[in-house]
């Protein structure tokens, strides 16, 4: 039993070194997406050294980055894609829009904050957030993910 537990613990430690990232654009202006895609995760900052990998399919994902204020038009699709991500998963809200709606918060067309509909684990505020902040958010998400996997 104890051997099994140590093995399980070991496997857990190994597993958290491979967080795969999936981005959902919930009606974002693309500012945060640009920060995520080109700045935070490409040569200069390279989160692949943490084992992160972008995946094109929600089914491969472990960490979900959500950007944008969840517009009315896209809400159902976002929820559906989010449900396709297999457990255990961690959600990071990137930018101020998914957190509070940002400059769109009074609009009739947005459903922010996102955490009314999805369990958000980490908030990374900013308009857009700095790449360092996104990386820190991902690092915190990995720490939370360790408890779940």
């Amino acid at each position, binding site marked *: 039993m104890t051997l099994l537990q140590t093995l399980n613990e070991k*496997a*857990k430690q*190994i*597993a*958290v*070194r*491979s*967080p*795969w990232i999936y981005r959902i654009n919930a009606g974002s202006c693309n500012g945060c997406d640009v920060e995520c895609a080109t700045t935070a995760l*490409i*040569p200069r900052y*390279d989160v*692949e*050294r943490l*084992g992160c*990998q972008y*995946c*094109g*399919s929600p*089914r*491969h994902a*472990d960490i979900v980055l959500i950007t944008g204020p969840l517009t009315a038009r896209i809400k159902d699709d976002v929820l559906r894609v989010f449900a*396709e991500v*297999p*457990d*255990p998963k961690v959600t990071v809200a990137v930018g101020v829009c998914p957190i509070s709606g940002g400059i769109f918060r009074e609009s009739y067309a947005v459903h922010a904050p996102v955490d009314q509909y999805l369990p958000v684990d980490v908030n990374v505020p900013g308009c857009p957030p700095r790449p360092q902040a996104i990386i820190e958010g991902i690092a915190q998400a990995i720490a939370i993910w360790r408890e779940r*996997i």
Partner: protein
Amino acid sequence: MLQSTTIPLAVLLFPGGVFAVALGLMLKGMDRRLAARLQGRIGPPLAQPFYDLVKLARKRTMVPDIAAEPVFLGAPLIGAASMLLAAALVPIAGVYTPDPILGDLLVLLYLLAVPAVVLMVAGSASGSPFGAIGFSREMALMLAYEGPLVLVVATVALRVGSFSIADIIAYQQVHGAFLFDPMMWPALAAFLAFYPANLGIIPFDIPEAETEVLEGPLLEYSGPALGLFKVMSALKAVVVLGLGIALFWPSAPDSGALGILAHLAKLIVMMLLGVTVLRVSMGRMRIDQAFHFFLKWPLALSVLSLVIVACA
């Protein structure tokens, strides 16, 4: 009696099985690391593919509502099993020669076609439109590259006079490796064009194009089932590169440990030069371009070499 114990060992433990999986994952790790360095990044740890696999084993496998479940879940099993068997068929010169009971080069050729077929089946069973696109592209690409491969193998077999893997190794150990024989260079060139396509490396990763059809057939897979596909592709790298070494470059020292080291060094050279450098320095071809490329150059080269060898 002896055979009945060594064959399971060969499939599950030494040249195939555990050894081949570890080797394949290590090659993938080196590939990712070097690719990152060539792009000016630091890159993942060398053991990253192992971490990915452990992670995938702990995730849930989701089956889409419209998928044909038995086929969807059976496909990765068949793919990984076929490559496990194929890995036991690949010789390591001076160390391991596959038992003739397991099969010869022709069996290896058939086993090599299984992963592509499995990906097609998986893509269409998943019910996803991206899987269907992957299916049709995989089929077109396979039709294009299988021809040159068969002709290359036939050329080598004709030169040696046998389809037995042991004979091919023995012939080259006496007469020198085909790598240094100008008569065999067209076949070698055709093989060098074939293996990136078979491994799904960038100029030819059209069926799984991540940025275009979101990994096509693999799109709907998650958890352990996706992990099995990763194992399959790691094993395939070992098998295809090992086949190339057996066909063209099996010269090796006779003693066991040195033989394995020489084999490893050759695998690493083929992986890094033939796969990594290629994939970071090129863009993806369209399926029609790849199809025309294979029916033009590798096919012509392999026919040429077959004619040269037949006439010589």
